[in-house]
């Protein structure tokens, strides 16, 4: 079996414009949620007035032609990719052995709707020729492929809020099957658009705690009232251990296993017993040849919705049994908000950092934990992971019943 390792990390999130600032803010328990910097609430009657807006806007770091040719979702992915690649040491890789798996859950929604405005206001002749390449959901993956000159295949598996995690799982499989030695893998989302806020709010999925933006995302708290939409991207450089060692690369962690299942239950609601969520975690461990008792840390999906959080918590307890008491749980969406297709990648980043630094970041805003919660939640301040080898799971679930669990182990 080919061992897959993580050799580079990149990110741009509501907490910071790179990995260092994002991780520092997470350890400090800072919230990236703010009041929307626009007039959408008044203009459209939006009930939701808060979001995890990107800390460093991509136009501050990209050139003008780059921002004109890419949807914001691709722009964020390119920012994260450049950081991750530099962090990996910008290795020389045979293009035919270099792959890409970068996903977005929503796609180029800004491009699509800006073009629709142009069509209605100015007519079809004013719709720009770059509209399709910018709005297609594989656009971030394709731009990363172009940026890297990658020829081993560029993929963009789409599974709503599990997309970023599924991209990382895809990259793992590419390396396992020998299709690539190095894969640029991650997720991105730039869907803080009024239509997305209105549409998620129509499902009553979003928090309306507008008077307390920093306190709005509160996974597992009894007063949680929905998720807070976030935007951003994270990219990991995955590599076969053999390739990484041959070039003397720094290794953050191993991606030792992945588990993917589907609920076959409902188009949006998770299956109430969390059976397939639990099985995804179990498959991730089994594929890595690891035992339940090896798990030391979980970054759960935990979005701060009334129903979803406890289904996952029960799935974790159901799988781990009493060992759940020994596992540190960090619900980092309490700080970043929910980055939809970017979430799985940002949380994979946090999981890798937690293993690497032996430190589990905090969950903020939990003042009254749900009485049914039977896990060891890291609250307000980071806690040290136990010394020695251990497994850290990162869970991501998407509308449609997509369940992805990634099992990282320390290098």
């Amino acid at each position, binding site marked *: 079996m080919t061992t897959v390792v993580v050799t580079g990390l990149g990110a741009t999130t509501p907490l910071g414009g790179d990995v260092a600032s994002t991780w520092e803010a997470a350890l400090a328990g800072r919230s990236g949620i703010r009041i929307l910097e626009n007039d959408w609430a008044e203009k459209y009657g939006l009930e939701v007035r808060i979001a995890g807006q990107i800390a460093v806007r991509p136009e501050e770091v990209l050139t003008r032609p780059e921002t004109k040719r890419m949807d914001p979702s691709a722009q964020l992915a390119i920012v994260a990719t450049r950081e991750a690649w530099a962090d990996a040491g910008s290795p020389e890789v045979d293009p035919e052995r270099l792959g890409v798996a970068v996903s977005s859950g929503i796609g180029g929604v800004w491009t699509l709707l800006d073009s629709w405005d142009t069509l209605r206001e100015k007519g079809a002749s004013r719709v720009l*020729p770059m509209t399709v390449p910018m709005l297609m959901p594989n656009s971030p993956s394709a731009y990363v492929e172009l940026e890297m000159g990658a020829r081993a295949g560029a993929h963009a598996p789409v599974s709503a809020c599990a997309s970023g995690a599924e991209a990382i799982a895809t990259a793992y499989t590419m390396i396992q099957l020998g299709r690539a030695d190095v894969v640029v893998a991650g997720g991105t989302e730039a869907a803080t658009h009024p239509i997305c806020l209105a549409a998620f709010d129509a499902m009553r999925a979003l928090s309306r705690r507008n008077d307390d933006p920093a306190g709005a995302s509160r996974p597992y708290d009894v007063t949680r009232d929905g998720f807070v939409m976030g935007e951003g991207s994270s990219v990991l450089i995955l590599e076969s251990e053999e390739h990484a060692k041959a070039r003397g690369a720094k290794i953050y962690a191993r991606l030792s296993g992945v588990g993917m299942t589907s609920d076959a239950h409902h188009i949006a609601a998770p299956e109430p017993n969390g059976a397939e969520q639990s099985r995804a975690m179990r498959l991730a461990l089994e594929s890595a040849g690891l035992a339940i008792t090896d798990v030391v840390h979980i970054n759960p999906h935990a979005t701060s919705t009334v129903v979803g959080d406890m289904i996952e918590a029960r799935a974790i307890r159901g799988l781990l049994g009493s060992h759940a008491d020994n596992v540190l749980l960090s619900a980092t969406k309490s700080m970043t908000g929910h980055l939809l297709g970017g979430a799985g990648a940002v949380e994979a980043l946090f999981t890798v950092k937690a293993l690497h630094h032996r430190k589990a970041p905090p969950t903020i805003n939990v003042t009254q934990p749900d009485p049914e919660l039977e896990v060891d939640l890291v609250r307000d301040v980071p806690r040290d992971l136990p010394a020695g080898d251990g497994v850290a799971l990162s869970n991501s679930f998407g509308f449609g019943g997509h369940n992805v669990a990634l099992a990282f182990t320390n290098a």
Partner: protein
Amino acid sequence: MALSEKEVLAGLAEIVAEETGLDAAEVTGPKSFTDDLDIDSLSMMTIVTLAEEKFSVRIPDEDVKNLVTVADAVAYMTKAQS
């Protein structure tokens, strides 16, 4: 009020610079869009669409292929305004 060739060149150079990242000063009359400015067909169509709006002209597809140099485009758009 129709713009002069000089004004059209300045406006076109601005569009090309935005699209390609080139310095507007590099967008001069004798330059070929493809050979000198390295503009692909998709970018050329973007430039044409933006120029149509900026100069209130219509450039049929069959005429676009005749716009080889910047000077060709400037002459065409200056004339088309009237």
